[in-house]
């Protein structure tokens, strides 16, 4: 919403400066977005007086003028026909920038004679399109700044333009008068009266209006007048200046009037060329499919139920949103029908949204204009038309009735203190509300018809507080919920999320936060991409579906980094993935991705390509950090984006999957343009069982002072036999004595023959009661061999 200072002053009698006004506006909740100081670009122009003007000896049209300026007498060559002795002019001295010709004036020679500046026209200073000659001022002292002269004599030309943001609850501030009312309530001046003009109805309009019964809830009231014999044409300069200042293009007087009152009094109006209206006007609902060519030169098709103003020829206006081109006013219009109607905000909002029309009328009607002002606004417009364009007006044509929005709420003066925490005396509260247009009867505050947002006691508090200024609010400590040291607030899962994240970072992974939506093709690679997870209105096809997993986002990140020349990557993300489109159909994941080598090549030859055991180690480390049990099963058969032979599911039983690690399927990498191989893990932190014990006690440490003994074994087994089978079998040989079993060597093929491998393991024995004797050790060793050969069908390697 834009307006100029002088426009504001038409409604507000104030001496406040622009700064005071803008500060107050922002503080009141009418946030100033910008102030355009139109005088700034003219600040260097000064007033001069032409002392003499003689013909240039070498040019018929040029005059050599001696001009009195603030820096003494200057010689200026001028080509304007009106440059003559005695006139008061505006001078741009050397060094001054002239906006209209985008030039900085210098000292120059024109046909051999020196010139020390320029005398300016209105167009050269961007004041108007006038360029028939240089400005002749009717008054002004030599040396004064021209902007000061303008401010005094023609302020509309240099008026600052103030732009404010309007929150949806304040339709009343979409008119300059509403803004003035807020400022007056704040004490920045007093409201000037805006009397209702008397419009004489000289005849009965031959255009009548009707509202269908089923449309009265959308158009409760419609008022109009027919004005005959107007002379349309350009608007008066002051009106054009105002519209231009706020960025509207003056069109013709009849149209400009409607725009003017839209902004001045938040009263959108429409003017029909009465001679183009066939028969009478009827407000009704669309059956669906009707078409209208609107004023924006586009054709719209009505949907069933939307409101139309029709005449005998069909739709002539998209009710409350935009008029039709057919009956629009032109320069030739002589008979005009002026419409002022009240439209239901909700229906206008839906129609505007459905037809995708953003008009000033829709913007205001959907926020709610003042229903009671509907006929008054009509007469303001008609009076202005009669005054400037002549003609005679009919009596008022009307249909429906102004809806009753009267309501009152109790003003509880103590509520400001208890809700806001400001002490404001009751009399001041009443005064504020009165200034805003509320009528107080006892402790009941009757809401003015222009404030549809005030719907309860809390709104009264808000009005009082904002006018008093929330800036004055003093903070007051919020008492603690409990005395003493605050308790921890995070849930176990939130803690897990944090620990998983920090463990992954400690393991050398860089955390990414990628978008929750990805393209359908990538989603499909990871089991997603179904319609249930599809966005209805994605901003691009790259972001069309909710991600089914974190890996596709990480792979896309890897591809981008590879394209930038970073081949060795360790990326991870912690966040939700979506298995459906209903609230709650999301699950927390931790995923990590390794691509390339463990590091750049180095003198120690330590760098090597990343492999499955890297991600297995990292997955295990994170699971361990978030409290997963050490004893897990590693199973195969995870989803098809994993390499079929190179992945493992970390499980507690066949159905309880804590995580998956492995190499990603080469086809997936190819589809996602990632140079592989790539290793990854995905963990489900919520699947890790909650610890059973309550409390922090770790239990007593059970250790033995007796020396532990280690024995190594090597077994030859089939190549498909898994190491974990050996370890579990060996562990089972003596549960009391065997503390740990570790695989330390794997050897495949060679002298062992095709399909065989050797696995070597260390068994650590920890006696608890007595030192182990050779016979004890031998006995356990034998059992280890027995168990392992039985479990694997392998043999002890000799």
């Amino acid at each position, binding site marked *: 919403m834009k307006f100029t200072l002088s426009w504001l002053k038409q409604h507000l009698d104030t001496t406040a400066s622009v700064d005071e006004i803008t500060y107050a506006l922002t503080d009141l909740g009418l946030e100033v977005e910008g102030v355009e100081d139109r005088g700034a670009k003219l600040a260097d122009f000064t007033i001069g007086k032409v002392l003499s003007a003689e013909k240039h000896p070498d040019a018929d049209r040029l005059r050599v003028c001696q001009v009195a300026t603030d820096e003494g007498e200057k010689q200026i060559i001028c080509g304007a026909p009106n440059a003559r002795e005695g006139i008061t002019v505006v001078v741009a001295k050397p060094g001054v920038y002239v906006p209209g010709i985008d030039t900085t004036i210098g000292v120059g020679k024109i046909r051999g004679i020196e010139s020390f500046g320029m005398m300016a026209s209105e167009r050269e200073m961007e004041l108007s399109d006038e360029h028939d000659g240089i400005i002749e001022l009717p008054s002004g002292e030599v040396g004064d700044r021209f902007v000061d002269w303008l401010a005094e004599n023609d302020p509309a030309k240099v008026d600052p333009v103030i732009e404010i943001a309007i929150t949806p609850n304040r339709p009343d501030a979409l008119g300059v008068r509403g803004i003035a009312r807020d400022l007056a309530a704040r004490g920045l001046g007093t409201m000037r009266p805006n009397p209702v003009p008397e419009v004489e109805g000289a005849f009965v309009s031959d255009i009548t209006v009707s509202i269908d019964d089923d449309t009265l809830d959308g158009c409760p009231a419609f008022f109009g007048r027919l004005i005959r014999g107007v002379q349309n044409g350009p608007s008066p300069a002051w009106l054009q200046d105002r519209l231009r200042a706020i960025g509207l293009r003056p069109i013709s007087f009849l149209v400009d009037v409607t725009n003017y009152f839209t902004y001045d009094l938040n009263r959108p109006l429409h003017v029909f060329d009465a001679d183009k209206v066939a028969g009478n006007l009827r407000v009704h609902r669309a059956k669906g499919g009707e078409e209208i060519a609107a004023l924006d030169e586009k054709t719209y098709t009505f949907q069933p139920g939307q409101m139309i103003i029709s005449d005998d020829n069909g739709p002539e206006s998209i009710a409350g949103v935009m008029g039709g081109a057919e009956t629009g006013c032109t320069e030739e219009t002589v008979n005009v029908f002026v419409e002022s109607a009240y439209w239901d905000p909700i229906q206008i*909002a839906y129609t505007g949204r459905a037809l995708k029309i953003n008009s000033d009328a829709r913007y205001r009607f959907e926020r709610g204009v003042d229903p009671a002002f509907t006929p008054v606004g009509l007469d303001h417009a008609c009076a202005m038309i009669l005054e400037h364009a002549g003609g005679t007006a009919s009596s008022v044509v009307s249909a429906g009735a102004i809806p009753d929005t009267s309501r009152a709420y109790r003003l509880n003066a103590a509520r400001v203190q208890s809700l806001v925490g400001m002490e404001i005396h009751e009399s001041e509260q009443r005064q504020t509300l009165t200034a805003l247009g509320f009528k107080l009867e006892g402790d009941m505050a009757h809401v003015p018809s222009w404030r549809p947002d005030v719907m309860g006691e809390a709104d009264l508090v808000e009005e009082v507080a904002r006018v008093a200024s929330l800036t004055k609010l003093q*903070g007051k400590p919020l008492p603690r919920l409990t005395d003493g040291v605050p308790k921890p607030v995070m849930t176990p899962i939130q803690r897990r999320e944090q620990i998983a994240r920090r463990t992954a970072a400690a393991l050398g992974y860089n955390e990414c*936060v990628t978008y929750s939506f990805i393209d359908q093709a990538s989603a499909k690679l990871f089991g997603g991409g179904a319609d249930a997870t599809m966005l209805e209105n994605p901003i691009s096809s790259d972001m069309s579906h909710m991600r089914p997993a974190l890996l596709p986002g990480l792979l896309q990140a890897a591809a981008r980094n590879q394209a930038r020349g970073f081949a060795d990557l360790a990326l991870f993300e912690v966040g939700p993935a979506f298995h459906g489109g209903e609230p709650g159909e999301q699950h927390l994941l931790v995923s990590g991705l390794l691509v390339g080598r463990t590091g750049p090549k180095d003198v120690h030859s330590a760098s090597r390509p990343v492999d499955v055991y890297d991600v297995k180690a990292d997955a295990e480390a994170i699971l361990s950090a978030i409290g997963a049990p050490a004893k897990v099963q590693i199973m195969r058969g995870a989803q098809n984006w994993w390499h079929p032979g190179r992945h493992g599911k970390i499980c507690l039983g066949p159905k309880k999957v804590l995580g998956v690690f492995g190499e990603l399927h080469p086809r997936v990498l190819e589809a996602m343009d990632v140079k592989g191989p790539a290793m990854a893990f995905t963990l489900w932190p919520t699947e890790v069982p909650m610890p059973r014990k309550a409390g922090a006690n770790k239990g007593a440490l059970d250790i033995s002072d007796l020396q532990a003994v280690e024995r190594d074994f090597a077994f030859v087994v089939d190549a498909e036999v898994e190491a974990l089978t050996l370890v579990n079998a060996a562990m089972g040989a003596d549960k009391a004595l065997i503390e740990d079993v570790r695989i330390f060597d794997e050897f495949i093929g060679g002298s062992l023959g095709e399909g065989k491998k050797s696995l070597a393991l260390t068994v650590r024995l920890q006696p608890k009661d007595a030192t182990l004797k050779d016979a004890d050790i031998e006995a356990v060793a034998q059992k280890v061999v027995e168990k392992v050969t039985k479990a694997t069908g392998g043999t002890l390697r000799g």
Partner: protein
Amino acid sequence: MDDLKSKYLTQIADAADEASLEDIRIAAVGKKGEVALKMRELGKMTAEERQVAGPALNALKSEINSALAAKKAALADAALDERLRSEWLDVTLPTRTQRRGTIHPISQVTEEVTAIFAEMGFSVAEGPRIDTDWYNFDALNIPGHHPARAEMDTFYMHRAEGDNRPPHVLRTHTSPVQIRSMEATGAPTRIICPGGVYRADYDQTHTPMFHQVEGLAIDRDISMANLKWVLEEFVKSYFEVDGVDLRFRASHFPFTEPSAEVDIRCSWEGGTLKVGEGDDWLEILGSGMVHPKVLEAGGIDPTEWQGFAFGMGIDRIAMLKYGVPDLRAFFDSDLRWLRHYGFAALDVPTLHGGLSR
């Protein structure tokens, strides 16, 4: 005997290596060495002679032994020194590289915010990213026709043919978590709800996903003055400054009344933000007293309970505090960016240790 002593001590001193030292030991104090032979002669001596010669021989033996041990140690030292002289490494060579992982600024700042509000008794509530339009809008006093709905650039979920429920939305703010939390716990309550939110907007300063933290405190007599204090304390703690001016500006949000936008005093010099000084004001959050209709929607009786709510952008305050220029880069996962703006694994923000370092 003195001859013997000086002979062997000289030999020991002159020995060049451990082998010759061993030869000397055998010759001198070995079983058949000269000292042993002298010892044997003691038997032939008179008692008087033996009383003199015995201790002298023993002293001689121990003196030689000490000299041998000392020389052996000296030789070992010399040998070690000699070996170490040849053992030289170019210690300017680089090490085996270790990857340095990082925490994303959004995670870090979320933890910072959580630490501060936890101290004031706020716990962390969470809710679904896909939500019904009732939780995202209606329950927050934003009915279907409300202009705020259109202004929010909402992402809608696809609806299958025949499913005539209003489409679900990607939550446009973290405020629906307020409602879910109120439903779950009732009043009194103090929560913050950090998390991702979505709006269909993408340009220099907008990304279709960003992060917010919502705050909600409901009790019998919580006022806007308490809100101001909480935010003042938060801003001071978060920006790690001693004092800060907060400006409450009247505004409007459908879910709060009265509503205020909150600015902090700051200065911008050479593109660097300094909080708590200067003449500029920076808008950092929206807030207000929870609208009675919102309390009702959450199942809380507005005639008994009241409280405040606020919401701010996590990405935004991360940008302000850590000088991150471009929002879009947060979600691009550029390794260089992650390394530069990321945080070390052990940089856990705490109030006792400090939020940043």
